[in-house]
C-alpha cells in the first residue's frame, strides 16, 4: 500500500515539476533601460497620466466578486484607475463583518493616504459617518444610504456624498415586461434580506406588473411579494448562500412561476441554476447586466433582462470630481440615480425575444416616467 502511494506521489511530483520547468522557460523581459528605448512613447504617456490621487473602497459582506452589487461599484474604481491614472486600494469584507470591522477597514484606508473612500452598502453608513467626522480632510462617498445621527435624525456632512438609486423606476419596466412575457401568468421575486434597497426592486417590479394588469385586464400575480407588508415578503436571509436561492426558486417554479426576480446579489445564481432544470423558466438580473457577466454565463440564454444600477458610472464620476477638485458633499449634493439621469435602466433585449410591440411600450413608459406623467412610488418620492 505504502509503496504504491509513494510511487504515485513520485509520479505526481515529477509531472508537477516538469510543468513548472516548462512554465518557467519564457524569456525574461528586457531591462528597463532598453525597454524605454524601444517604446518610450507609451511609457512616457503613462507617466504623464499618473496623477497624485488615491481612491479607495470598502465592500460589504458580499465581496467584490459578487457578480452584482459590490462588483458593479468596484468596476467603477478599476475604470478610474486605468483611465484617470490614479492609485487605488480596497478592502473586501468577509461574510459576517461587524460595524467595528467596517470602521477598522475605513480607518486603515485613511491611514494609507486615501483621498477618497467609498463605502459600498448601507451597512457601512455608521462607519463612514464616524470616519468622516474624524477625518474632515478626506472625502467619502456612501453607496445606497445617506447619513444619520445616532437617533436617526438625518445628518449631512460636507465631505460625504451619498449615492442612492431610485431603482423602483427600472424595476417597474422589468415588471411590465415580465407580465407581458409570462406564459403561466405567475411571476416571483425574493430578496436576500429585506433591506429597503432590496424591497425597492421588488416593490417597483410589483407596481409594473399591477400596471400591466390594469392596462390589459390580465391577472398576472407575483409570488414572494404578496400583501402590502413588505416585512413578510420572501427572502433567503443572507446574501451569500446560493443553495438557498436555488431551493426557494424551485419552490416558486413548483407553484407555477416562470419568471423570477432574485434581489439577493450572488444568491441569484441559485435562480439561474434552477432555470436550467425547468423548461421555460426565465430570470431577471439585478445591479449589472447579468447577460454579460461570466458568473451568469451558464444560463444567460434564460435571462430576460436585468435591472441595472449604473454604480460604476457614479463611482467613476465622483472620483473624477475628486481629481478635478470639484467634489461636492452633503445631502443637498447627493446623487439619486433614476431613469431620467440614466442612473438606472433595464438591459437591452438579448436572447429571450420580447413579445411583439413591447419594446415600443417600454420606451413610451420610460418617457412617461421621466416626464413625471407616470409616478412609480418609492421612498425617494415621499
Amino acid at each position, binding site marked *: 500500500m505504502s509503496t504504491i502511494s509513494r510511487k504515485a506521489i513520485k509520479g505526481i511530483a515529477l509531472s508537477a515539476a516538469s510543468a513548472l520547468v516548462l512554465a*518557467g522557460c519564457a524569456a525574461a523581459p528586457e531591462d528597463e533601460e532598453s525597454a524605454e528605448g524601444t517604446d518610450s512613447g507609451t511609457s512616457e504617456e503613462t507617466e504623464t497620466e499618473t496623477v497624485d490621487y488615491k481612491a479607495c473602497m470598502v465592500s460589504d459582506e458580499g465581496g467584490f466578486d459578487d457578480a452584482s452589487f459590490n462588483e458593479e461599484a468596484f468596476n467603477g474604481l478599476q475604470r478610474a484607475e486605468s483611465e484617470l491614472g490614479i492609485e487605488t486600494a480596497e478592502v473586501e469584507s468577509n461574510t459576517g*463583518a*461587524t*460595524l467595528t*470591522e467596517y470602521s*477598522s477597514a475605513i480607518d486603515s484606508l485613511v491611514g494609507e493616504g486615501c483621498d477618497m473612500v467609498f463605502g459600498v452598502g448601507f451597512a457601512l453608513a455608521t462607519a463612514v459617518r464616524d470616519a468622516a467626522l474624524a477625518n474632515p480632510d478626506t472625502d467619502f462617498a456612501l453607496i445606497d444610504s445617506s447619513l444619520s445621527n445616532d437617533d436617526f435624525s438625518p445628518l449631512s456632512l460636507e465631505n460625504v456624498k451619498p449615492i442612492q438609486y431610485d431603482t423602483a423606476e427600472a424595476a417597474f419596466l422589468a415588471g411590465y415586461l415580465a407580465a407581458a412575457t409570462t406564459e403561466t401568468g405567475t411571476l416571483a421575486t425574493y430578496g436576500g*434580506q*429585506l433591506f429597503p434597497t432590496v424591497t425597492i426592486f421588488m416593490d417597483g417590479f410589483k407596481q409594473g406588473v399591477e400596471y400591466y394588469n390594469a392596462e390589459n385586464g390580465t391577472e398576472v400575480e407575483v409570488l414572494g411579494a404578496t400583501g402590502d407588508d413588505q416585512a413578510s415578503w420572501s427572502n433567503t436571509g443572507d446574501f451569500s448562500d446560493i443553495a438557498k436561492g436555488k431551493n426557494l426558486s424551485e419552490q416558486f417554479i413548483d407553484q407555477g412561476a416562470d419568471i423570477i426576480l432574485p434581489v439577493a446579489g450572488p444568491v441569484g445564481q441559485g435562480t439561474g441554476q434552477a432555470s436550467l432544470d425547468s423548461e421555460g423558466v426565465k430570470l431577471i438580473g439585478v445591479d449589472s447586466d447579468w447577460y454579460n457577466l461570466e458568473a451568469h454565463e451558464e444560463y444567460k440564454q434564460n435571462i430576460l433582462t436585468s435591472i441595472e444600477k449604473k454604480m460604476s458610472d457614479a463611482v467613476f464620476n465622483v472620483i473624477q470630481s475628486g481629481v478635478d477638485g470639484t467634489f461636492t458633499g452633503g445631502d443637498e449634493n447627493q446623487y439619486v440615480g433614476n431613469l431620467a439621469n440614466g442612473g438606472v435602466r433595464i438591459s437591452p433585449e438579448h436572447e429571450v425575444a420580447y413579445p411583439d410591440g413591447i419594446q415600443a411600450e417600454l420606451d413610451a413608459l420610460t418617457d412617461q416616467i421621466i416626464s413625471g406623467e407616470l409616478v412609480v412610488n418609492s421612498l425617494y418620492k415621499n
Partner: protein
Amino acid sequence: MKQQNLIREIFSGNAVIPIFAVVASFLFGGILIAFANEEVQEASGYFFSRPGDTISAVLNSVVGAYDALFRGSIFNYQASTAQGMIKPLTETLAFATPITLAGLGLAVSFRSGLFNIGAQGQIIFGAMFAGYVGLSFELPFLIHMPMAVLAGLLGGALWGGLVGLLKATTGANEVVVTIMFNYVALLLLTYLLKTPVFQAPNQVNPISSPVAESSRLPGILGDGFRLHFGLIIMLAMVVAVWWLMHRSSIGFQFRALGYNPSAARTAGINIPLTYILVMAVSGGLAGMAGASQVLGADRQLTVGISATFGFDAITVALLGRNNPFGVLAAGLLFGGLRSGAVLMQANQGVPVDIVLVVQSTIVLFIAAPPLVRSLFRLPKPKAVQA
C-alpha cells in the same frame, strides 16, 4: 461514544501541536500569498532566464504581507503618532474580547464532553437580552451597565441551558440541536429587528437605536480607541473559568462527565443536572460575548452582531486545548488575524481570504496531529490509555 473518542483524541497529546499547527498554517498561507501575487506570477514565467526575479518577488510579497499583518495587529512602526502606533494592538484586544469569551464557553462544554456548536446563537441571545436592557431602561450607570451585562449572561445561559435540558430529558444530540438553535436565534433577531421591540423609530433598515449611554461598557483608553471595559470582563472570566474548572467541585463534576459519563454516574454525579449546568455556563459565557459586542463595540443591535465569533470560538477553544489560558492566547491570535487582515489588504492587496485560509488550516492541522508531527519530525507521544 465515537464522537467523544474523537474529541478526546483531538484534545489529548502534545501541547506543542497547536504551536506547530499555527506555524505550519502561516507557512502555508505564505505559499498562497506568493502564488496569488501578480509580480510573482509574472517573474516565474521566465524563472530559468533570471531566477533572482522570482525569488525576490516571492520574498517581497510574503514579507510585505506578514509585515502588514504585524503592523495591523501589534505595532505600527510606520504610523506618525504614538496613538497610531499602539492602535493596532488595541484593535487586536478589542476583537479578541468576544472571541475569547465565547471560546471560554466552548472550552467548558468541550472539557465536559459536550460538543456545543451553538456559540453563535448564544452570542445572539446574549446580545438581545443585553440590548433589550440597554435600550429599554434609564438607570444610573452603576446599576444599568452591570444589569445589562448580567442580562447578556442570562440570555446566553438560557439558550444554552435549554439545549442541556433537551439532552438531559430526551437525549437529543447537542451537536444537532445547537446548530439548529443558531438558525432559530438569528431568525428571531432578524424578525425582532423588524418590529418595534428593537427597530429604531423612523428607521427602515433592520437596526436598533444605540443603547443608552448608562448601559455602555466604558472605553478604556478614551476616544480614538475602540478598546472597552469588556476586555477587563474577559480577563476576569479567564481566571473565573480556570477556578471553576480546576478548583471548584462543580468543575470537577464537569470534567468527570467529560472523561467518562458512566463512571461519573456511578460516582453519584447527577448527570442530567450536570448537562444543563454545563450548557448554561457555556452559553452564559457566549452570552457575555454578545453583551460585550452590543454594549461595548457596536453599541446597537444589527443582524450581524455575532459576526462569525461563535464559529471562530470553536477553533479558539480547540487551539487553546480547552485550557482557559490557552483559549486566551488563541483568542489573541485570532483577534490579531482579524485586525491585521484589514491592513494586509489595504496596504499589500492581499485578499482577505488568505486569513480565512490560515484560520482554516489551523483547524486542519489541529485535527490531524500525526500530520503536524511528521511535518516537523516531532516524536510520537507515548500511548496514553484512555
